[in-house]
């Protein structure tokens, strides 16, 4: 039969976080499901969700935090599947003995790449160490997260990925220490989700899509080494480097084994969390934007 064409916009340039998708693509799992997936890479992570909402692309990779915010802002979005079901963001500091606990951050500079939820999450994490959000200086460092930390311009960075920035810093010779939000009062959330347009989504296609990446995820876990070579084969000259290799290793364990699985309670808790910290004006019911397909 004629393949369904699906455009998928990633959240950023292809990187290990997209493992299952790339592998599914390379292995032809999408084809098996009768899908032709076309991948686009944006330069601005906030763009894809908007384009889905505008019904310009079928699927896009976003973050649960953003998704919740977007839905609360009345964007017609739904979560179609989950790619990585644990947080990846971490609070990172240089491992040079200066800062050993979150408490040490009192009065320090924290660099961020604005995502809109900083106050809520950083605030919460600091609270667990008895530090007020107002006791730290928050600076947007945009494109230069890790170099900001490495160069000592800031004492900590929030927004770096535990599987990515940490390795990057290590490679550059700056061993880092990470504080994990889920260990410091922040409810669990899915880092990477796939979103679709609430009004125009094609449940059947999404189902097939999920099947494909589920299969890919399984394959990755079963054959990490092979999977790596397959992943790299997507674009050898840009993907095949040490950083990605390390990141790949650290990401393996975080791919969601059941992309289609829905846990409404989990979503509600996180929505509540954002609402409590006034990130969103009201609480969208998770049932509405996390449909069970």
């Amino acid at each position, binding site marked *: 039969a004629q393949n369904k064409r699906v455009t998928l916009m990633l959240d950023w340039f292809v990187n290990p976080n997209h493992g299952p998708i790339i592998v599914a693509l390379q292995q032809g799992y999408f084809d098996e499901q009768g899908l032709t997936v076309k991948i686009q890479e944006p330069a601005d992570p906030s763009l894809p969700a908007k384009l889905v909402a505008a019904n310009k692309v079928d699927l896009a990779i976003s973050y649960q935090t953003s998704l919740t915010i977007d839905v609360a802002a009345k964007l017609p979005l739904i979560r179609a599947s989950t790619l990585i079901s644990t947080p990846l963001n971490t609070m990172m500091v240089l491992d040079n003995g200066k800062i050993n606990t979150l408490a040490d951050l009192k009065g320090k500079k924290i660099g961020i790449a604005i995502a809109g939820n900083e106050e809520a999450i950083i605030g919460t994490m600091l609270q667990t160490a008895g530090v007020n959000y107002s006791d730290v200086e928050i*600076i947007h460092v945009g494109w*230069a997260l890790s170099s900001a930390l490495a160069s000592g311009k800031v004492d900590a960075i929030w927004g770096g990925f535990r599987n990515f920035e940490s390795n990057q810093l290590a490679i550059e010779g700056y061993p880092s220490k990470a504080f994990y939000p889920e260990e410091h009062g922040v409810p669990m959330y899915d880092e990477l989700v796939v979103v679709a347009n609430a009004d125009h989504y094609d449940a059947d296609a999404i189902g097939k899509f999920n099947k494909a990446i589920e299969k890919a995820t399984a394959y990755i876990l079963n054959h990490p080494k092979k999977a790596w070579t397959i992943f790299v084969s997507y674009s050898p000259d840009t993907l095949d480097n040490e950083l990605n290799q390390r990141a790949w290793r650290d990401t393996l364990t975080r791919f969601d084994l059941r992309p289609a699985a829905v846990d409404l309670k989990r979503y509600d808790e996180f929505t509540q969390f954002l609402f409590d910290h006034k990130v969103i004006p009201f609480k969208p019911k998770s049932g509405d934007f996390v449909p069970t397909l």
Partner: protein
Amino acid sequence: MPPRNPFTRSAQSAEVKPRKIGSSLLQGVITVIVILAIWQCIVIFFKMPSFILPSPGAVLQKLVQRADVLVFHAWVTMQEILLGLLLGLTMGLFFALQMLLFKPLKRWLLPILIASQAIPVFAIAPILMLWLGYGIASKVVMAALIIFFPVTTCCYDGLRSTPTGYLDLAQTMSASRWQTLRHIRLPAALPTLASGIRVAVVVAPIGAVVGEWVGSSAGLGYLMLQANARMMIDEMFAALFILALFSISLYFMTDQCLKRAIHWRL
């Protein structure tokens, strides 16, 4: 006699007497309205979803509702813009003079200036941050960087195309380089230089905003990112609106001054 070709006339009178402040204020108001109208039309006819292009109404509402926040950030950016302009204009003038006075130096300097223009900020963001930190400095430098090339070019082209007769006269009066520059070349270059300045005041704001993306904890650029991240698009456009107002008012203010200053023609 009946009026003649209105073309040359209007063109002349434009130079002869600068428009009244009052009317230019009125003009300002009119144009703001026009812009809003066009905007509204786009929203309607292209069926823009509000999270991509909010309606002027919504934005104006935000403008009022969040006035305090906006004013605060606008004030920060304003400072950056003005300082940036100051720095950029002086730099531009300075480089132009350098290239003019020390011809050989031009060959070496110019390409570097050009290169400095061709480099997207995100690429050198870490460097900027490393050198300038997250204070106001980085924004001022960005604003300056973005405007100083047009200024340099116009200024340099203006300075070197002085009517030869004037230069001859200066020479027979055995004027020093500096005096010739100060009293002949500079005034003669003003009209061209003016173009440079006009461009500068318009693009300076964007320089400041880009600077704020490099790193900041306040300012309209910062606010925009924040609003965008929180999908408060109307707030982002409110900031955008203020930014545009800056450019426009800066332009017309400068234009008035320049018209008053340059009352002659070569």
